[in-house]
């Protein structure tokens, strides 16, 4: 079973309006590369010029922020779920 990636609204124009796509990469960074090969342009929306995740993009693996895991080196296994979510305001 592959890894599911939930695509946020602002990026769905790039994924032909797919809300969920599947990848088979073994790390989060690898998933971004795989997504770029299928949906050209998506990587620059997620990563800045230095290759780091943009500061207003939050990436979660199974609901845990990857900054608490191993960032883009975070390993993925079958059945994992990645969420990409814009940072939002306080409350």
């Amino acid at each position: 079973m592959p890894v599911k990636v939930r695509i946020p609204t602002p990026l769905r124009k790039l994924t032909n309006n797919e809300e969920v796509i599947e990848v088979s990469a073994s790390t989060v960074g690898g998933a971004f590369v795989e997504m770029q090969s299928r949906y050209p342009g998506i990587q620059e929306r997620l990563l800045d010029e230095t290759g780091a995740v943009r500061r207003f993009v939050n990436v979660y693996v199974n609901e845990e922020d990857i900054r608490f895991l191993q960032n883009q080196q975070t390993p993925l296994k079958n059945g994992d779920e990645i969420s990409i979510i814009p940072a939002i305001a306080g409350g």
Partner: protein
Amino acid sequence: MEKHEGFMKALKCRECGREYPLAATHVCEFDFGPLEVVYDYSRIRQSMDRSAIQARPQTMWRYRELLPIIREPTVGFQVGFTPLVKADRLAQRLGIRELWIKNDTVNYPTLSFKDRVVSVALSRARELGFSTVACASTGNLANSVAANAAAAGLKAYVFIPADLEQGKIVNSLIYGAHVIAIKGHYDEVNRLCAEIAGKFGWAFVNVNMRPYYAEGSKSMGFEIIEQLGWRIPQHTVVCMASGSLLTKIQKSYQEFIKLGLVAETPYKVHGAQATGCAPISTAHKAGLDFFKPVKPNTIAKSLAIGTPADGFYALRVMKETGSASDDVTDAEIIEGMKLLAECEGIFAETAGGVTVGVAKKLIASGKIPANDSAVLCVTGHGLKTLDAVVGHAGRTREIRPSLREFEALLDAEAKITATI
């Protein structure tokens, strides 16, 4: 009736500058940067001067041109213009020449500064045709959305962390709002709401309505300037959760300068956090312009945001203005709450204890010089966070209804006092 066509021009990405129409949308499609309202300041300048403002009702809407709605407000007419209290007794205790408390513990109707942002967000939501409003909240925002939505006849869904103080939970339920408690901390509630907001077509005040919502905080800064007699305080101390309030206070000072409503004088806006959730002050003290997310563990639950969305901008504002920041422990938070209550008769929630506690540290270290003047922004009422101070605020002494027992009690206390 005065007619407005609106003083807004567009929404604009704070990162890349791309512009968007004035819709219910909050992030740049390109880089996910937050969108901010762009105003037509030349039109505003023609419509707003000191005498025009002073002739208007004493609410936050007297600064109407700088708040992002097109027509007259339809939610929360009475919000704002809370007292700016000269705090001489607290000034003496903290060792500073002049001190003021901006007292949003008595904001209308739900006793926190959130009524400012919510009245803007809900008025704008109505303009955009929404009938259901929602929020992700650490408590105060939930209370305010629930109450203001009830008064406006809007349907409300509020999402909160399940471990909130009872006071804040009841304070949302009573208005008939749908209160959804999430088993997780605020950052997890937030993440869920970001996903829900994309799906249901509701006006989420701090998600898709955020560009409008956040601007409401500026009214606190406008009021401070006006209530000080049209001057900018040398020092303002603001508690930080997402960091939004601090950035908007600074923006309010900048806008009044730009419009010629106040003279440009040096000012600092210092940030206050709880040690148990201090991603912004930790980064600031280390001289960084980015923060590391944390997992919150503090009694200041209204500030418990480990991934602060405006953290970058709060850091930038503090850096540009040469301001300081610091954080205080749970014990220091309670001490701060007691100090404010005992010196000024103001019962603030835990976040107010954070502000007072950090102000005390900054004055003691000279970062706020003893001969200067400071305003502390106190943002929510203490009755909402009773759980945090039960057992720390002294205790009652119980006697029978007998004069003899009362005299005995006074005698005993006099003896204890004499031996100290």
